[in-house]
């Protein structure tokens, strides 16, 4: 075979492989929208998105997912509240303060944390965090608080990973400049290196939000899953993901389609997050 022909063939194979993921996304979009949008039409956009009641097996059924939208937002916000300070400070520590020997312990621990399946996080939440929350704050222990705490832990590896590499890519000259002005190590890191890594860290936080909002198996075990608008930090909550997974098994007809439509809403959320992620990334490159 001639070299040129072979080159063409090889690049065609690579193109086909590369298009697989694009095709997967396209197919998922088609599936989601084809089965979700008609259901939304049947239920009514506003009654679906802004309805405060979810009673899918009643006759006639009521499909309002506002409680779950709020639930996902609250739980994600909570996760950010727990995860971001811990994650950012950890990444600063790892990138700029940690002794190499300690780093060799922390880094694999974080990799392990990232590799733990979410169902195991769920068990941990159910067996440790839920009783802990119940003992300290009362109630069932399954709450926005517990879910946020667990998700906060789960998004740590994402936030730390991205933030750490952002911090490491800050030019050493900023740090040296600060030291040359008489700043201590800590001051140089927190007031010059950290601000310089701001947009990279922000990107890490957005990725963390994406992970938190899409998390399912762990949340379902610690959130209580009440399908009503959240009533308090220590009360139960149902997220969009939980709604889909809890009821998909037995659902049929419009109920099933309403669950897929819930998936569409989630998909739009993720889309927004990804777009803002690329915007932030683009800005950080400038």
């Amino acid at each position, binding site marked *: 075979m001639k070299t040129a022909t072979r080159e063409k063939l090889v690049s065609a194979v690579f193109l086909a492989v590369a298009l697989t993921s694009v095709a997967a996304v396209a197919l998922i979009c088609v599936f989601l929208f084809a089965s979700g949008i008609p259901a939304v039409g049947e239920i009514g956009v506003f009654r679906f998105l802004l309805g405060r009641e979810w009673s899918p097996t009643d006759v006639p059924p009521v499909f309002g997912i506002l409680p779950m939208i709020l639930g996902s937002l609250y739980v994600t916000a909570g996760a950010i509240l727990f995860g971001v300070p811990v994650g950012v400070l950890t990444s600063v520590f790892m990138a700029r303060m940690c002794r190499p020997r300690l780093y060799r312990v922390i880094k694999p621990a974080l990799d392990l944390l990232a590799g733990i399946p979410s169902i195991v996080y769920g068990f941990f939440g159910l067996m*440790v965090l839920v009783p802990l929350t119940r003992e300290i704050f009362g109630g069932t222990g399954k709450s926005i608080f517990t879910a946020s705490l667990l998700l906060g832990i789960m998004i740590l590896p994402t936030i730390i990973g991205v933030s750490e590499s952002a911090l490491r890519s800050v030019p050493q000259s900023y740090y040296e400049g600060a030291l040359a002005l008489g700043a201590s190590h800590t001051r140089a890191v927190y007031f010059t290196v950290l601000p310089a890594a701001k947009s990279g860290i922000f990107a890490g936080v957005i990725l963390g939000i994406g992970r938190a909002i899409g998390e399912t198996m762990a949340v379902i075990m610690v959130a*209580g899953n009440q399908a009503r608008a959240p009533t308090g930090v220590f009360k139960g909550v149902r997220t969009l993901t939980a709604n889909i997974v*809890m009821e998909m098994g037995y659902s049929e007809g419009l109920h099933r389609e309403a669950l897929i439509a819930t998936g569409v809403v989630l998909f739009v959320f993720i889309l927004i997050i990804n777009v803002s992620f690329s915007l932030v990334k683009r800005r950080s490159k400038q």
Partner: protein
Amino acid sequence: MRRVFAFCFILLLVLSGCSGRGFDVSREIDVITREEGSGTRGAFVELFGLLQKGEDGTRTDLVTKEAGVENNTNTILTTVRGDESAIGYISMGALDGKVKALAIDGVAATTENVVSGDYTVSRPFIVVTAANPSALAEDFIAFILSRDGQAIAAKSYIAVAPQAPPYSGDAPAGKLVVGGSSSVSPLMEKLIEAYEAANPNANVQLQTTDSTMGVSKTIEGAYDVGMVSRDLKLTESGVLTDTVIALDGIALIVSPENPVSELTREDIRRIYTGEAATWAEVTR
């Protein structure tokens, strides 16, 4: 890794040790339910009158929206075991001895009481056939009532003929349509699978609808065998031959730390509608 687990376990022990300060009846009841669409929830709301039926065919599930929702039996067991003010319900076959099954109206939640009919939080799984069923339908029902079929039923439900002899049919050939109650359907699916293994000549189709369809379609002749998960009305049982193949009992469970061991049906209805919010309102 093992050390980490050990640490968590010890933490848990310490925590559970902290809770030994006596049961507080003024605490809110942590109501736990199954998700909408689950068969167990369907049976539960039906048996406790938590499904309000309107004249015009409307159905409203009255279980309080404040109830925690779990989508599997194991999570309910774990949750109830750890939370002394929780109450939940599971299929009786899943009881594991680490939670306390409540007596209802003074009758303990045991298999014997379900079989004897004293424990009423249960429902029969019934198959119905036309007055003169085909040989294949008869053989299939014989299989269900044999030791083999009942062993399958006993895995998740309560067998009605635990001492039955093994299946010894002559493997008649033909096609069989089984349809009806979605509650019976999961069990029926396993029974059909085992039956087709035992009788390779048979071709059994399963159609999942509901109990009412199970009766009416069998009368029409569209189903050879109908599945029903409630007691038959007199009018229906006149036309059809009915056979109870298994019993489904539902146990109300609380933590072993909870001193309550008995409730009335009315108490449970009030708990699950949210009328009774604290244990004080249902303990006397």
